[in-house]
């Protein structure tokens, strides 16, 4: 529905000048008339090279957006704004980074068809990229290799997960890991590329934390496998609700009912609450 593009542009002395500069850059990257697209961008405040700045641009074809908005309107919803997932994630991670003190954070949001690598520096969204690493592809590969139904593979992965390289699990677990490892290695390549991009854009800043969320995150051991393959600190995204103190709990964060699936929704709900710090 949309895609994100990181662009460098020459900063003006006003928001309108910045917008015009971003549009000028995007004009060369998009096919057809700019009027056929909907664009919005987030300037990255922490990255500045002289008068050149980095911005994360979200772009989509206008008819797609309008049709989607019309569907929502006809469903009786009053749409205030159309948020994108990476921004919500960066907002949530930015909130968590304030508490954990992480500099650069990479979020791997795995989906059924593809996954998204979102690089966040402090509270800035630096980078968002789609990679062809999805749950369906992994299950299909395992099912073909093991000659088993995909449903059975899905159930097994959700129940037993994948074994890390160092851990010695059952034969099936090891076999499954070996089957899926080439695809994980492709993801690792992309992660390393993002780490290099982070170092380049943040003057040598390393990715200090990798959060995993989405469908693959529900597989036990997936974060350990990625950590062993990348050598980075990979963890499932903490409970988003832990950011908020439970009512009547004397300010203590809520720890029960951990639901990492709602990370994007939680980040979207923080829109306007954090004061865009």
């Amino acid at each position, binding site marked *: 529905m*949309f895609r994100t593009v990181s662009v460098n542009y020459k900063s003006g002395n006003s*928001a309108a000048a*910045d*917008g015009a500069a971003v549009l000028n850059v995007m004009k060369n990257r998009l096919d057809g008339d700019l009027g056929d697209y*909907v664009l*919005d*961008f*987030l*300037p990255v405040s922490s990255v500045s090279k002289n008068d050149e700045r980095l911005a994360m641009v*979200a772009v*989509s074809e*206008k008819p797609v*957006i*309008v049709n989607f*908005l019309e569907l929502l*309107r006809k469903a009786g919803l009053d*749409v205030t*704004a*159309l*948020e*994108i997932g990476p*921004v919500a994630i960066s907002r949530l991670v930015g909130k968590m980074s304030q508490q954990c003190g992480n500099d650069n954070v990479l979020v791997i949001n795995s989906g059924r068809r593809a996954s998204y690598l979102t690089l966040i520096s402090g509270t800035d969204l630096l980078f968002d990229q789609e990679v062809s690493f999805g749950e369906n592809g992994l299950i299909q590969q395992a099912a073909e290799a093991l000659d088993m139904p995909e449903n059975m593979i899905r159930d097994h992965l959700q129940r037993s997960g994948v074994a890390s390289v160092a851990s010695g699990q059952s034969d099936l677990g090891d076999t499954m890991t070996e089957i899926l490892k080439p695809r994980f290695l492709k993801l690792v390549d992309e992660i390393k590329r993002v780490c290099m991009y982070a170092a380049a854009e943040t003057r040598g800043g390393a990715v200090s934390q990798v959060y995993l969320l989405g469908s693959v995150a529900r597989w036990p051991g997936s974060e350990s496998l990625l950590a062993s393959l990348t050598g980075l600190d990979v963890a499932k995204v903490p409970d988003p609700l832990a950011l908020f103190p439970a009512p009547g709990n004397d300010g203590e964060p809520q720890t029960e009912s951990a639901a990492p699936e709602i990370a994007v929704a939680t980040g979207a709900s923080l*829109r*306007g609450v954090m004061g*865009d710090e």
Partner: protein
Amino acid sequence: MNEIDLIPRDYRNWLGQKRVLRNGVILFVAINALVLAGGAWLSHSVAKGKALATQLQADNAITQQQQLQLQQMKDQQSTYEQQLALLQGLRAGAAIEDIFTLIDRSLVADRLWFLDWGFRRAGIIVDGQRRTYETGYFIIVGETNDAAKKQNLEVETRMTIHGQATDHQALSSFVRALFEQPDVRDVNVQRTSSINLGARRAVEFNITVILHSEYRGA
């Protein structure tokens, strides 16, 4: 710019215009509904007022009819009172003995005598002007004649005297003496003629004496 929002500006404007249009339509419908409701209320009030006016007019018609009946009854009462007064006047009037006393006072001894006399008492309709002479006719006027309502009913007592006098001086003295009587209103000499009464001449006369009435009906 700190947030991403992919809602197209023209779409947001279109939504805003649509919202304004919808609010305008709602406002228009609400105003129309208010106007209709007000019109219905006014119509109801007008109908109610008309009904009240009709009721008042009916009441007023009844009142006018009652007034008319009252007026008719008053007129009838007036007629009855007139008739009663007339009857009372006819019954009352001057007493016969008083009339004769009055005539007797005016007689000139041995110079004037009566041959015949008549007496009549009746009610007459007059037009409000006192008359010095009446022919003795009764005038009956219907109730619907407005002119008659302005007329007065008067009970008149008149006496006609046919007599003879030795001369005109005696007759004149008699008539003057009658005039001087306070109860006599008018004296009309109807006719005089000289006659031979044996060896002497005499004057035969007819006079009418009209007495003051004790009743003057309205």
